[in-house]
Protein backbone atom coordinates (compact mmCIF):
# COMPACT_ATOMS: atom_id res chain seq x y z
CA UNK A 1 0.00 0.00 0.00
CA UNK A 2 1.50 3.28 -1.00
CA UNK A 3 1.42 6.55 0.93
CA UNK A 4 -1.47 8.01 -1.01
CA UNK A 5 -3.79 5.13 -0.32
CA UNK A 6 -2.88 5.24 3.34
CA UNK A 7 -3.75 8.92 3.45
CA UNK A 8 -7.09 8.09 1.86
CA UNK A 9 -7.85 5.45 4.47
CA UNK A 10 -7.57 7.93 7.35
CA UNK A 11 -11.01 9.45 8.13
CA UNK A 12 -11.03 12.88 6.49
CA UNK A 13 -11.37 15.98 8.64
CA UNK A 14 -12.73 18.92 6.67
CA UNK A 15 -11.32 22.42 7.17
CA UNK A 16 -13.81 24.76 8.86
CA UNK A 17 -16.30 26.62 6.66
CA UNK A 18 -16.51 29.75 8.80
CA UNK A 19 -14.30 31.87 6.52
CA UNK A 20 -16.39 31.03 3.46
CA UNK A 21 -19.67 32.05 5.06
CA UNK A 22 -18.06 35.18 6.52
CA UNK A 23 -16.61 36.05 3.11
CA UNK A 24 -20.05 35.61 1.53
CA UNK A 25 -21.55 38.12 4.01
CA UNK A 26 -18.66 40.56 3.46
CA UNK A 27 -19.10 40.33 -0.34
CA UNK A 28 -22.86 40.93 -0.12
CA UNK A 29 -22.26 43.88 2.24
CA UNK A 30 -19.69 45.36 -0.18
CA UNK A 31 -22.21 44.95 -3.01
CA UNK A 32 -24.79 46.94 -1.03
CA UNK A 33 -22.18 49.65 -0.32
CA UNK A 34 -21.33 49.67 -4.03
CA UNK A 35 -25.01 50.01 -4.98
CA UNK A 36 -25.71 52.64 -2.30
CA UNK A 37 -22.65 54.75 -3.10
CA UNK A 38 -23.63 55.00 -6.75
CA UNK A 39 -26.73 57.02 -5.70
CA UNK A 40 -24.61 59.62 -3.89
CA UNK A 41 -23.73 62.67 -5.99
CA UNK A 42 -19.95 62.28 -5.88
CA UNK A 43 -19.33 63.33 -9.46
CA UNK A 44 -16.23 61.72 -10.94
CA UNK A 45 -15.59 59.92 -7.65
CA UNK A 46 -18.62 57.66 -8.17
CA UNK A 47 -16.70 55.61 -10.69
CA UNK A 48 -13.59 55.61 -8.48
CA UNK A 49 -15.62 54.24 -5.53
CA UNK A 50 -17.48 51.74 -7.74
CA UNK A 51 -14.37 50.30 -9.34
CA UNK A 52 -12.39 50.50 -6.08
CA UNK A 53 -14.98 48.41 -4.22
CA UNK A 54 -15.05 45.96 -7.14
CA UNK A 55 -11.27 45.56 -6.95
CA UNK A 56 -11.55 44.81 -3.21
CA UNK A 57 -14.32 42.24 -3.89
CA UNK A 58 -12.28 40.57 -6.65
CA UNK A 59 -9.18 40.38 -4.42
CA UNK A 60 -11.24 38.83 -1.60
CA UNK A 61 -12.74 36.22 -3.96
CA UNK A 62 -9.28 35.35 -5.28
CA UNK A 63 -7.66 35.26 -1.81
CA UNK A 64 -10.29 33.16 -0.05
CA UNK A 65 -12.45 31.28 -2.57
CA UNK A 66 -9.60 30.72 -5.05
CA UNK A 67 -7.19 29.90 -2.19
CA UNK A 68 -4.50 32.41 -3.20
CA UNK A 69 -4.05 33.42 0.45
CA UNK A 70 -2.45 30.02 1.10
CA UNK A 71 -1.01 29.47 -2.39
CA UNK A 72 2.67 29.43 -3.34
CA UNK A 73 4.31 32.62 -4.72
CA UNK A 74 4.48 31.15 -8.24
CA UNK A 75 0.70 30.65 -8.19
CA UNK A 76 0.10 34.23 -7.05
CA UNK A 77 2.44 35.45 -9.78
CA UNK A 78 0.49 33.50 -12.42
CA UNK A 79 -2.75 34.94 -11.03
CA UNK A 80 -1.45 38.49 -11.05
CA UNK A 81 0.35 38.61 -14.39
CA UNK A 82 -2.84 38.82 -16.50
CA UNK A 83 -4.15 41.71 -14.42
CA UNK A 84 -0.78 43.44 -14.57
CA UNK A 85 -0.71 43.46 -18.37
CA UNK A 86 -4.38 44.48 -18.48
CA UNK A 87 -3.44 47.48 -16.32
CA UNK A 88 -0.63 48.29 -18.78
CA UNK A 89 -3.06 47.99 -21.71
CA UNK A 90 -5.67 50.29 -20.14
CA UNK A 91 -3.05 52.69 -18.78
CA UNK A 92 -1.26 53.18 -22.10
CA UNK A 93 -4.57 53.39 -24.03
CA UNK A 94 -5.81 56.16 -21.76
CA UNK A 95 -2.43 57.87 -21.91
CA UNK A 96 -2.94 58.06 -25.66
CA UNK A 97 -6.64 58.95 -25.93
CA UNK A 98 -6.74 61.41 -23.04
CA UNK A 99 -3.80 63.45 -24.31
CA UNK A 100 -4.97 63.83 -27.91
CA UNK A 101 -5.72 67.42 -28.84
Amino acid sequence: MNELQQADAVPAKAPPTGRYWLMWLVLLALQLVNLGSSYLPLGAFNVVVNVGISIVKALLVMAVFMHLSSASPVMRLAAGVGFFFLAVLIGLSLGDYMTRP
Partner: protein
Amino acid sequence: MAAEGTSAMAASHFADAEQRETAATFGMWIFLATEVLFFGVLFAGYTVSRVQHAEAFILAGRHTDVLLGSINTAVLLTSSLTMALAVRAGSVGWRRSCAAWLVLTAVLGVAFLAIKGYEWHEDWLQGLVPGLRFAYSGPDAPGVELFFFLYFVMTGLHALHLTIGILVIAVMALLAARGRFSAAYHTPIVLTGLYWHFIDVVWIFLYPLFYLVSRS
Protein backbone atom coordinates in the same frame (compact mmCIF):
# COMPACT_ATOMS: atom_id res chain seq x y z
CA MET B 1 -12.13 0.85 -6.87
CA ALA B 2 -9.70 0.21 -9.67
CA ALA B 3 -10.39 3.67 -11.07
CA GLU B 4 -9.84 5.26 -7.68
CA GLY B 5 -6.62 3.34 -7.14
CA THR B 6 -5.09 4.43 -10.43
CA SER B 7 -6.31 8.02 -10.20
CA ALA B 8 -4.81 8.38 -6.73
CA MET B 9 -1.40 7.52 -8.10
CA ALA B 10 0.61 10.13 -9.94
CA ALA B 11 1.93 9.61 -13.45
CA SER B 12 5.66 8.86 -13.62
CA HIS B 13 6.68 12.42 -14.48
CA PHE B 14 5.28 13.71 -11.18
CA ALA B 15 6.97 13.04 -7.84
CA ASP B 16 3.65 12.71 -6.03
CA ALA B 17 -0.05 13.56 -6.26
CA GLU B 18 0.43 16.91 -4.55
CA GLN B 19 2.96 18.02 -7.16
CA ARG B 20 0.54 16.91 -9.86
CA GLU B 21 -2.28 19.00 -8.40
CA THR B 22 0.05 22.00 -8.06
CA ALA B 23 1.02 21.66 -11.74
CA ALA B 24 -2.63 21.39 -12.81
CA THR B 25 -3.64 24.40 -10.70
CA PHE B 26 -0.74 26.42 -12.09
CA GLY B 27 -1.88 25.54 -15.62
CA MET B 28 -5.39 26.66 -14.76
CA TRP B 29 -4.11 30.03 -13.51
CA ILE B 30 -2.15 30.49 -16.75
CA PHE B 31 -5.38 29.79 -18.68
CA LEU B 32 -7.23 32.28 -16.47
CA ALA B 33 -4.53 34.88 -17.21
CA THR B 34 -5.31 34.49 -20.92
CA GLU B 35 -9.00 34.86 -20.04
CA VAL B 36 -8.22 38.11 -18.19
CA LEU B 37 -6.75 39.46 -21.43
CA PHE B 38 -9.62 38.01 -23.51
CA PHE B 39 -12.14 39.97 -21.42
CA GLY B 40 -9.53 42.67 -20.84
CA VAL B 41 -9.56 44.12 -24.36
CA LEU B 42 -13.31 44.65 -23.95
CA PHE B 43 -12.78 46.38 -20.60
CA ALA B 44 -10.09 48.56 -22.24
CA GLY B 45 -12.51 49.32 -25.09
CA TYR B 46 -15.18 50.24 -22.57
CA THR B 47 -12.79 52.55 -20.71
CA VAL B 48 -11.71 54.41 -23.85
CA SER B 49 -15.32 54.65 -25.12
CA ARG B 50 -16.52 55.97 -21.79
CA VAL B 51 -13.83 58.65 -21.74
CA GLN B 52 -14.75 59.68 -25.29
CA HIS B 53 -18.54 59.52 -24.83
CA ALA B 54 -18.94 60.44 -21.16
CA GLU B 55 -22.33 62.17 -21.63
CA ALA B 56 -23.77 59.38 -23.78
CA PHE B 57 -22.71 56.68 -21.29
CA ILE B 58 -24.51 58.55 -18.51
CA LEU B 59 -27.69 58.69 -20.64
CA ALA B 60 -27.37 55.04 -21.68
CA GLY B 61 -26.60 53.83 -18.15
CA ARG B 62 -30.10 54.87 -17.05
CA HIS B 63 -31.64 52.26 -19.37
CA THR B 64 -30.20 49.16 -17.70
CA ASP B 65 -32.21 47.44 -14.94
CA VAL B 66 -30.34 48.14 -11.69
CA LEU B 67 -32.67 45.91 -9.61
CA LEU B 68 -32.22 42.81 -11.78
CA GLY B 69 -28.50 43.51 -12.14
CA SER B 70 -28.10 43.73 -8.35
CA ILE B 71 -30.11 40.53 -7.77
CA ASN B 72 -27.93 38.75 -10.33
CA THR B 73 -24.75 39.97 -8.61
CA ALA B 74 -26.00 38.53 -5.31
CA VAL B 75 -26.95 35.26 -7.05
CA LEU B 76 -23.46 34.91 -8.52
CA LEU B 77 -21.69 35.82 -5.26
CA THR B 78 -23.79 33.17 -3.51
CA SER B 79 -22.89 30.62 -6.19
CA SER B 80 -19.23 31.30 -5.42
CA LEU B 81 -19.91 30.37 -1.79
CA THR B 82 -21.62 27.10 -2.77
CA MET B 83 -18.78 26.35 -5.19
CA ALA B 84 -16.17 26.91 -2.45
CA LEU B 85 -18.14 24.57 -0.18
CA ALA B 86 -18.26 21.97 -2.97
CA VAL B 87 -14.47 22.15 -3.41
CA ARG B 88 -13.99 21.81 0.34
CA ALA B 89 -16.29 18.78 0.53
CA GLY B 90 -14.52 17.25 -2.47
CA SER B 91 -11.09 17.82 -0.95
CA VAL B 92 -11.92 15.58 2.00
CA GLY B 93 -13.75 12.97 -0.07
CA TRP B 94 -17.34 13.74 0.96
CA ARG B 95 -18.79 12.76 -2.39
CA ARG B 96 -22.51 13.29 -1.65
CA SER B 97 -21.97 16.67 -0.02
CA CYS B 98 -19.70 17.68 -2.91
CA ALA B 99 -22.27 16.63 -5.52
CA ALA B 100 -25.06 18.45 -3.67
CA TRP B 101 -23.13 21.74 -3.44
CA LEU B 102 -22.18 21.41 -7.13
CA VAL B 103 -25.83 20.94 -8.12
CA LEU B 104 -26.83 23.98 -6.05
CA THR B 105 -24.07 26.02 -7.76
CA ALA B 106 -25.33 24.96 -11.19
CA VAL B 107 -28.92 25.85 -10.21
CA LEU B 108 -27.79 29.34 -9.14
CA GLY B 109 -25.96 29.65 -12.47
CA VAL B 110 -29.12 28.76 -14.36
CA ALA B 111 -31.07 31.28 -12.26
CA PHE B 112 -28.54 33.95 -13.25
CA LEU B 113 -28.93 33.11 -16.94
CA ALA B 114 -32.73 33.16 -16.64
CA ILE B 115 -32.69 36.65 -15.09
CA LYS B 116 -30.15 37.84 -17.67
CA GLY B 117 -32.26 36.40 -20.48
CA TYR B 118 -35.33 38.24 -19.17
CA GLU B 119 -33.28 41.46 -19.08
CA TRP B 120 -32.11 41.00 -22.67
CA HIS B 121 -35.73 40.40 -23.68
CA GLU B 122 -36.74 43.69 -22.02
CA ASP B 123 -33.87 45.45 -23.81
CA TRP B 124 -35.12 43.99 -27.09
CA LEU B 125 -38.65 45.25 -26.44
CA GLN B 126 -37.28 48.71 -25.62
CA GLY B 127 -35.30 48.73 -28.86
CA LEU B 128 -31.85 48.88 -27.26
CA VAL B 129 -30.16 46.19 -29.35
CA PRO B 130 -27.57 47.77 -31.70
CA GLY B 131 -27.69 46.50 -35.27
CA LEU B 132 -30.88 44.48 -34.83
CA ARG B 133 -33.43 46.67 -33.13
CA PHE B 134 -32.11 50.03 -32.03
CA ALA B 135 -34.89 52.56 -31.61
CA TYR B 136 -33.20 55.10 -29.32
CA SER B 137 -33.35 58.49 -30.97
CA GLY B 138 -32.53 60.85 -28.11
CA PRO B 139 -29.37 62.93 -27.78
CA ASP B 140 -25.95 61.30 -28.29
CA ALA B 141 -27.48 58.29 -30.07
CA PRO B 142 -24.15 56.99 -31.50
CA GLY B 143 -22.54 56.99 -28.04
CA VAL B 144 -25.60 55.31 -26.51
CA GLU B 145 -25.46 52.68 -29.23
CA LEU B 146 -21.77 52.08 -28.44
CA PHE B 147 -22.65 51.59 -24.74
CA PHE B 148 -25.24 48.96 -25.61
CA PHE B 149 -22.94 47.31 -28.12
CA LEU B 150 -20.37 46.83 -25.32
CA TYR B 151 -23.13 45.80 -22.91
CA PHE B 152 -24.33 42.98 -25.17
CA VAL B 153 -20.87 41.77 -26.18
CA MET B 154 -19.50 41.76 -22.62
CA THR B 155 -22.56 40.32 -20.83
CA GLY B 156 -22.95 37.89 -23.76
CA LEU B 157 -19.37 36.66 -23.54
CA HIS B 158 -19.81 36.38 -19.77
CA ALA B 159 -23.02 34.37 -20.21
CA LEU B 160 -21.23 32.06 -22.66
CA HIS B 161 -18.55 31.40 -20.03
CA LEU B 162 -21.24 30.83 -17.43
CA THR B 163 -23.02 28.34 -19.69
CA ILE B 164 -19.80 26.38 -20.18
CA GLY B 165 -19.25 26.53 -16.40
CA ILE B 166 -22.72 25.15 -15.69
CA LEU B 167 -22.16 22.24 -18.10
CA VAL B 168 -18.75 21.42 -16.56
CA ILE B 169 -20.24 21.60 -13.05
CA ALA B 170 -23.07 19.25 -14.09
CA VAL B 171 -20.52 16.70 -15.33
CA MET B 172 -18.46 17.10 -12.14
CA ALA B 173 -21.57 16.59 -9.97
CA LEU B 174 -22.31 13.38 -11.86
CA LEU B 175 -18.73 12.13 -11.46
CA ALA B 176 -18.65 13.10 -7.77
CA ALA B 177 -21.94 11.28 -7.11
CA ARG B 178 -20.51 8.18 -8.80
CA GLY B 179 -17.52 8.26 -6.47
CA ARG B 180 -14.86 9.19 -9.00
CA PHE B 181 -13.18 11.63 -6.60
CA SER B 182 -11.56 11.10 -3.23
CA ALA B 183 -9.52 12.95 -0.64
CA ALA B 184 -6.42 11.87 -2.60
CA TYR B 185 -7.76 12.79 -6.06
CA HIS B 186 -10.13 15.72 -6.61
CA THR B 187 -8.14 18.02 -8.92
CA PRO B 188 -10.96 18.41 -11.50
CA ILE B 189 -13.25 19.81 -8.78
CA VAL B 190 -10.56 22.31 -7.72
CA LEU B 191 -10.03 23.47 -11.32
CA THR B 192 -13.78 23.77 -11.96
CA GLY B 193 -13.98 25.90 -8.83
CA LEU B 194 -11.23 28.23 -10.07
CA TYR B 195 -13.02 28.67 -13.41
CA TRP B 196 -16.34 29.40 -11.70
CA HIS B 197 -14.86 31.96 -9.30
CA PHE B 198 -13.15 33.66 -12.26
CA ILE B 199 -16.55 34.08 -13.94
CA ASP B 200 -17.75 35.67 -10.70
CA VAL B 201 -14.77 38.06 -10.71
CA VAL B 202 -15.59 39.18 -14.27
CA TRP B 203 -19.19 39.93 -13.25
CA ILE B 204 -17.99 41.84 -10.16
CA PHE B 205 -16.51 44.36 -12.63
CA LEU B 206 -19.33 44.25 -15.21
CA TYR B 207 -21.87 45.15 -12.51
CA PRO B 208 -20.67 48.71 -11.74
CA LEU B 209 -19.73 49.44 -15.36
CA PHE B 210 -23.20 48.72 -16.76
CA TYR B 211 -25.64 49.00 -13.85
CA LEU B 212 -24.22 51.66 -11.55
CA VAL B 213 -23.33 54.37 -14.11
CA SER B 214 -25.22 57.61 -13.60
CA ARG B 215 -27.49 56.48 -10.74
CA SER B 216 -26.71 59.64 -8.74
